[in-house]
């Protein structure tokens, strides 16, 4: 049992994956000596060498494009995109090549690649450093998209993602990197990668969150409990595929659901989730499925981000609207 932050847990998970399989390579900008700008790969080049922890030239398409070839040669590349807003130069390689090679070749080519992206806001950063592009990847057939919200999931999910033979976009909530510590039992049996998890049980309303908003929603549930409202919080964990059976079970009990994410609300994950809940739980719903997300503006300058990001009060406001419906 070790107490770790999310950053340390991801580092430990990467280390374990590299120990377990010599074909695992890390690629990215500044991942070597520096250990990444968030130190997620700290010390790994020193222990595994420059052939396995590869500092890339500053070209994101180049990172993902070469990782395709590395994977075709039988390796398992784990690519770090330094910040969410820098993934777009690699977008073509991810969407047109990584996502489609298995399909194009009827399975002759596998893409066991993990694309790690620190995402989300709340760190006071400049433009392009606080975005939430998950829907763009979840919309792409051939990719799988997962996101961790806490150190325990970070430790296990990164290992499970690396072990997957399908390409995975692995989203890491950067403002949680150095926030909370959790006890990690390295001998535990992890829950399956592509599964959602009830983070807090409740009876009156279901909050659906992932990545950085899980913590927000747990605080909401705590605050609402003080007012006598019992709120269930589900950590979705996997965005493509979605694991919504536990969500349907929950909504059939509570009759009310709110999806909370930092990404723009329009056509965000919340739109798809709301549609599916409506299709499956229509007669159980006491209120329309609501969405609380980032506004449909570009991510704002950092002095405005507290207003932009869904916080305790905005989610509580939505809880009121749902319960009063």
């Amino acid at each position, binding site marked *: 049992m070790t107490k770790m932050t999310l950053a340390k847990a991801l580092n430990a998970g990467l280390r374990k994956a590299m120990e377990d399989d010599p074909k695992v*390579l890390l690629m990215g900008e500044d991942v070597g000596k520096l250990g990444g700008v968030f130190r997620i790969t700290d010390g790994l080049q020193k222990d595994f060498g420059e*052939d396995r922890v*590869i500092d*890339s*030239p500053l*070209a994101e*398409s*180049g990172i*993902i*494009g*070469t*990782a*395709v*070839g*590395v*994977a*075709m*040669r*039988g*390796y398992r*590349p784990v690519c770090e995109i330094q910040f969410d807003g820098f993934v777009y*130069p690699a977008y*073509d*390689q991810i969407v*047109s*090549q990584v996502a489609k*090679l*298995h*399909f*194009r*070749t*009827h*399975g*002759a*080519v*596998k893409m066991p690649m993990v694309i790690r992206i620190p995402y989300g806001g709340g760190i006071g950063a400049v433009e392009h450093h606080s975005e939430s592009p998950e829907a763009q990847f979840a919309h792409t*057939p*051939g990719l*799988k998209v997962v996101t961790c919200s806490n150190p325990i999931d970070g430790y296990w999910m990164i290992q499970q993602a690396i072990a*997957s*033979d*399908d390409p995975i976009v692995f989203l890491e909530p950067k403002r949680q990197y150095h926030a909370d510590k959790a006890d990690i039992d390295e001998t535990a049996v992890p829950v399956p990668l*592509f599964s959602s998890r009830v983070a807090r049980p409740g009876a009156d309303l279901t909050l659906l969150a992932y990545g950085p908003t899980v913590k927000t929603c747990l605080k909401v549930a705590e605050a609402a409990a003080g007012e006598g409202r019992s709120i269930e919080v589900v950590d979705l964990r996997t965005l*493509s*595929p*979605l694991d919504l059976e536990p969500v349907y079970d929950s909504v059939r009990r509570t009759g009310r659901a709110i999806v909370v994410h930092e990404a723009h609300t329009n056509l965000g994950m919340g739109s798809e989730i709301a549609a599916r809940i409506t299709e499956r739980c229509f007669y159980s719903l006491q209120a329309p499925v609501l969405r609380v997300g980032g506004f449909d503006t570009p991510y704002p300058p950092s002095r405005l981000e507290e207003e932009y990001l869904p916080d305790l009060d905005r989610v509580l406001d939505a809880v009121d609207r749902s319960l009063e419906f």
Partner: protein
Amino acid sequence: MSLLGPTAQGGPEFIQLLTPEGQRVEHPDYAFDAGGRDEAEVVRGFYRDMVLTRRIDTESTALQRHGELGIWTQLLGQEAAQIGCGRALLPQDYVFPTYREHGVAYCRGLDPLRILSLFRGVDQGAWDPNEHNFANYTIVIGAQTLHATGYAMGVQRDGLVGTGDPDRDTSVVAFFGDGASSQGDVNEAFIFAASYNAPVVFFCQNNQWAISEPIERQSRIPLYQRARGFGFPGVRVDGNDVLAVHAVTQAALQYTREGNGPMLVEAYTYRMGAHTTTDDPTRYRMSEELEYWKLKDPISRVRVYLTRNGLADHAFFDSVEAEADELGVRLREGCKSMPEQHPLAIFDQVYVDQTPELTEQRDTFAAYLASFEGAH
């Protein structure tokens, strides 16, 4: 042999071993190597390869005209560039093609029908790349040059560069064209390969046209000279001279296999056909240009050379022609009788581990299809 001779330094001349008139000439840096076999026999083999490749191309164009293919990417005029390069490869080498490398595919032993199935719309070129060390056709311009570079990085990690063992040392060839040279991916591939000293031969077929845009729109300098700026050698070879392309590619492959890093070969050639069967070159280029390049035809010059020097007789040329006719019949029949995929097949090709939601979508669609059974 020095690869940093005048040509690699940026000199204007290109490497030629067989003139358009069929005259054999020598080059100070590049000699044709028949690999211990009788040179005439090897050249006859190249002739046969090029004639069969051209037949694959002309038959496929005809199949498109008859509505049997949705589209065809013509290679007419680029036979020497592709055969010269393809025949220089060793079995362990690996090829990353564009969508026009039908001649290289032929050299690697890929059945042309596997390519026709792509252009017929039966599949998307679904061959197993490891069967012939020939990756799948890539339609997004230049994307494959990064894949080649990454593959070469894997080769390095497998310890198969610079061992001195000719059966193990491996090179990777990235094909691309003059149009692709403007793409970021190609330039990133140059940088990654140079930075990691990866064993990649960047093989550019400069066929002068990127659909309607001439080479002048892509580059102010000869393309091979770009390599210098990235820190590795580049050479320009007469892409319509199969002997020169073979010699230069062989040297480039060896240079990269030895661990010297990447190398750029610009095969200076000409797209005698259209970009694809949907293109109309009469809208943007003069017929005089085509006539000029017809005089440099890659197949004619070899035929003249073989005939004039008594290295092949009528019986040989007739037998190649007959073989091409047989190939044409096989392609026509094979194309028309190609089995179609079941509509449900696409659901099972997306992931290694199928997702429950895709399984559900498949089952729903299967039930929908089944609901029509027996209905008229």
